[in-house]
């Protein structure tokens, strides 16, 4: 009997064959079974469902984003270790640790996971954790939508990792240029896994972007004008604008590519009137703003951290805002610098090159402002500040090589080489990762009521920094020697030592991550000793005025704001205890399982698209529409906590 209508193109030949992927394919389900067994044994399923899976509390959603992102970081670094182990032994006469197909899948998934599921994940974690608290509100504008965003992100994450178990991943690099990713060259399910994981996670990101944009516009505490917002909130605001403009381009270009693949259309094929150059333009029209989407919140974080730990007002608040807006604007008119070598004329290349350099000006100004925030300050080098110092060094180097790459005639000689690889890791690790780790350390006590262990945190920072230099400085050199990216073997023996040093660097970064995992475990174990007060860093912004951990309602009484760094000045003037009459009824959104179910249905539907199981595609699509309608019809999505109860809880939390 023909089962194709039921299971599409699934068959057993798609099971993994390589030892390393087989290991992952067996290990991952086993881990899940172990977790499920533990949950059953400790009778935690109900807790997990009630308190986490169905939650619409931004802080909890933030914590879930962060947890997924940290697990994905481990996966991404393992991919990096595989890549650099292979290049360390891949010299002349060297060996293959695994076959080229696996190698190419690994660097593709490394890029996808690090950008979409680590960097974006940590970024949304921080948005959720910090933004509502910083602007003095109880939740985001659309709490249910927030849950949907998270579960779409989660669905995308399962798709990427699921490809390891069944079907394999794309070999086309993280942006999958056609025609390599078209049916002609890649007929298998790998590219479809890549498309649908990005598509589903990307839609989640777009929804989140809208959500936080509206939250910042509408939910700010009374008196908090735009020019009184913390700089982190400013950075989130400009980031969400970028998201709302850029992410539809990603959705659109992936949709066109999937139409090519599913229905034999010709948007980006080489034949039939298609044009792959169109795809390259579109994907970078999203891809370039995307890197600014990642780094601008990090800029915001550094602004908060430097001011707090220098115990001094941020230098040039207005300039910082202007710089953020300038970067936002320019980031949309530089995309062509990713393909100076595609044969555009000299005028076009020169224009985009110059626009790119212009971004260096506001970015440089931000660095000077941070430096002069430190100037005449009282700097405490707690671990967030250590991360800032590592950032300042690393990111500046990355900025220099970035400007080099922005000169078309220099780019002609280093494009798509390991020099380029070193550059973007320089800015993404130095800028984004260091910033987000600093932010996690900084806001951790606000979430959990205890500190992360300082010593292990500092050790992690040093290992990361040294490991980073060892990994990527040799890559700059290799690029100038002619080593192109994405090689698994090479014939020049003089490259071998450089690749070995780079592999050692990845191991050192791995030790840094081990320190962080240990730090989390140790801090949970010693949480009593690491107990944090409501304002452990002597902070400047509103989130430090509520108890730690922040209560589920964030603020018992919505604060009023009359200046930048409101909390800092309130402390100087003496914080007044609230009167009983200040407490009002609080309205909060109820938990709902729709977010989770919609996300999981999107996962099933995407899986069906990947495997061409058409009936299931239709069923999932209809199910999602029906669930959205049902949710829209539900009039009882909120509940009220009476003022007296709020007062009781608040007094208890502050006691």
């Amino acid at each position: 009997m023909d089962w194709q209508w039921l299971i599409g193109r699934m068959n057993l030949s798609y099971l993994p064959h390589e030892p390393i992927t087989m290991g992952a394919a067996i290990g991952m389900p086993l881990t899940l079974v172990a977790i499920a067994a533990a949950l059953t044994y400790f009778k935690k399923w109900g807790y997990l469902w009630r308190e986490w899976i169905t939650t619409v509390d931004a802080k909890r959603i933030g914590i879930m984003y962060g947890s997924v992102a940290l697990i994905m970081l481990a996966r991404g670094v393992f991919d990096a270790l595989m890549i650099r182990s292979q290049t360390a032994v891949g010299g002349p006469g060297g060996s293959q640790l695994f076959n080229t197909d696996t190698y190419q899948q690994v660097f593709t998934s490394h890029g996808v996971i690090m950008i979409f599921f680590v960097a974006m994940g940590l970024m949304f974690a921080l948005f959720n954790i910090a933004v509502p608290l910083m602007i003095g509100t109880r939740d985001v504008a659309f709490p249910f939508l927030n849950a949907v965003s998270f579960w779409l992100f989660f669905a995308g994450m399962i798709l990427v990792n699921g490809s390891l178990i069944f079907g394999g991943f794309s070999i086309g690099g993280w942006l999958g240029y056609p025609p390599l990713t078209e049916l002609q060259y890649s007929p298998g399910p790998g590219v479809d896994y890549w498309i649908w994981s990005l598509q589903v996670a990307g839609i989640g990101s777009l929804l989140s972007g809208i959500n936080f944009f509206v939250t910042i516009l509408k939910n700010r505490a009374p008196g908090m004008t735009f020019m009184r917002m913390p700089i982190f909130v400013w950075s989130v605001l400009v980031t969400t604008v970028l998201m709302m403009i850029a992410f539809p381009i990603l959705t659109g270009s992936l949709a066109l590519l999937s139409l090519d693949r599913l229905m034999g259309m010709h948007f980006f094929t080489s034949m039939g009137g298609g044009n792959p150059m169109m795809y390259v333009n579109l994907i970078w029209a999203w891809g370039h703003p995307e890197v600014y989407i990642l780094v601008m919140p990090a800029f915001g974080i550094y602004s908060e951290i430097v001011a707090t730990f220098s115990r001094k007002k941020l230098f040039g608040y207005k300039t910082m805002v202007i710089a953020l807006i300038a970067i936002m604007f320019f980031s949309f008119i530089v995309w062509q610098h990713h393909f100076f070598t595609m044969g555009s004329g000299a005028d076009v290349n020169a224009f985009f090159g110059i626009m790119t350099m212009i971004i260096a000006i506001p970015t440089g100004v931000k660095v000077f402002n941070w430096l002069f925030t430190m100037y005449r300050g009282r700097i405490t080098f707690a671990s967030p500040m250590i991360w800032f110092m590592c950032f300042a060094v690393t990111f500046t180097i990355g900025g220099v090589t970035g400007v080099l790459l922005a000169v078309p005639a220099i780019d002609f000689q280093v494009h798509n080489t390991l020099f380029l690889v070193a550059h973007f890791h320089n800015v993404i690790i130095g800028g984004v990762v260091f910033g987000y780790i600093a932010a996690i350390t900084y806001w951790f006590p606000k979430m959990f009521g205890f500190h992360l262990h300082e010593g292990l945190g500092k050790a992690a920072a040093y290992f990361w920094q040294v490991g980073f230099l060892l990994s990527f400085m040799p890559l700059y050199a290799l690029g100038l020697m002619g080593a192109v990216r994405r090689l698994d073997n090479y014939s020049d023996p003089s490259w071998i030592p450089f690749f070995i040093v780079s592999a050692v660097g990845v191991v050192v970064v791995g030790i840094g991550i081990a320190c962080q995992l240990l730090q989390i475990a140790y801090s949970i174990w010693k949480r009593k000793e690491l107990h944090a007060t409501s304002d452990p860093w002597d902070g400047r912004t509103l989130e430090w005025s509520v108890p730690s951990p922040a209560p589920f309602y964030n603020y018992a009484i919505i604060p009023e704001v009359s200046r930048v760094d409101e909390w800092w000045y309130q402390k100087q003037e003496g914080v007044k205890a609230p009167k009983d009459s200040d407490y009002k009824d609080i309205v909060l959104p109820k938990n709902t399982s729709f977010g989770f179910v919609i996300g999981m249905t999107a996962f099933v539907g995407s899986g069906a698209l990947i495997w061409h199981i058409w009936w299931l595609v239709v069923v999932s699509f209809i199910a999602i529409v029906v669930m959205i309608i049902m949710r829209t019809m539900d009039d009882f999505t909120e509940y009220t906590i009476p003022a007296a109860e709020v007062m009781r809880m608040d007094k208890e939390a502050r006691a």
Partner: protein
Amino acid sequence: MLVACTVIALVTLGYLLVHSAHFDVLQPAGAVAKSEKSLLIFAFSIMMLVVIPVFIMLAVFGWKYRAGNNKKVDYRPEWHEHKLLEAIWWGIPIIIILILATTTWITAHTLDPYRRLDSKAAPVNVQVIALQWKWLFIYPDLGVASVNELPVPVNTPIHFTISADAPMSAFWIPALGTQIYAMNGMSSQLNLIADHVGAFPGYNTNINGEGYAKMKFNVYSKIDKDFSSWVESARKSPNMMDEQMLQKISQPSTMDGTSYMLMDNNLYNKVIMKYMKGTASDKDNSTTSMQHDMLNMEGM
């Protein structure tokens, strides 16, 4: 200890740099790559004017204003604005970027890959086709072709036209300069010159499938006499490059360097036209007009 580790690592690295490696980009063998190298060094140096002061300030401010510093230092928690200082650090980067932007504009034109090189010698035309996973070089005027080896006469401009019968690939000879994408149905151009005799590696820089890492070739820059004798021997080669042979080597595989006698002068155009067919209507004489359009696209 960490500092010590870093120092040891850097010293080791420095030693390796000096002794074993060949930096094709920094040790160029042609005029184009030479200009690109000096541009790289110029841009890097001018940026150091900002970067070095930043690093110094970072270290000095971090040390001087640390909380544990016992010496009495200024602490001004409210000091957050200074018009002159801000003007300085908007101004200096703006000046530097102005200089770099001017340089960028000029060099984007002088080093435009499509621009013909100034030379007394007549250029040699080479048609390049990226295949899965090897490079085919056709010398239409000389009646020869080769795979994965590119003999060129020294001190003579080479005019490349580049296309592909493979996923997007990129053609790059680091010692000579400027890489450019090779794409189906399109013809890119590149002008390079070698100014001394030698062998230089060439690469594909864009992922195009399984054999990507092995898609390498060698450039042999020869004095005129040696180049002519290579052409002569290729012309007498038993290997003939015609449509049949092209079909054969277009199959996904990797190959060693081979020379061919060129039997079909129109091979390059045929490869491009393969990708044009889907758009051409079959009832009129559109083939010629398509070809015309295609040739115009070279200017893109």
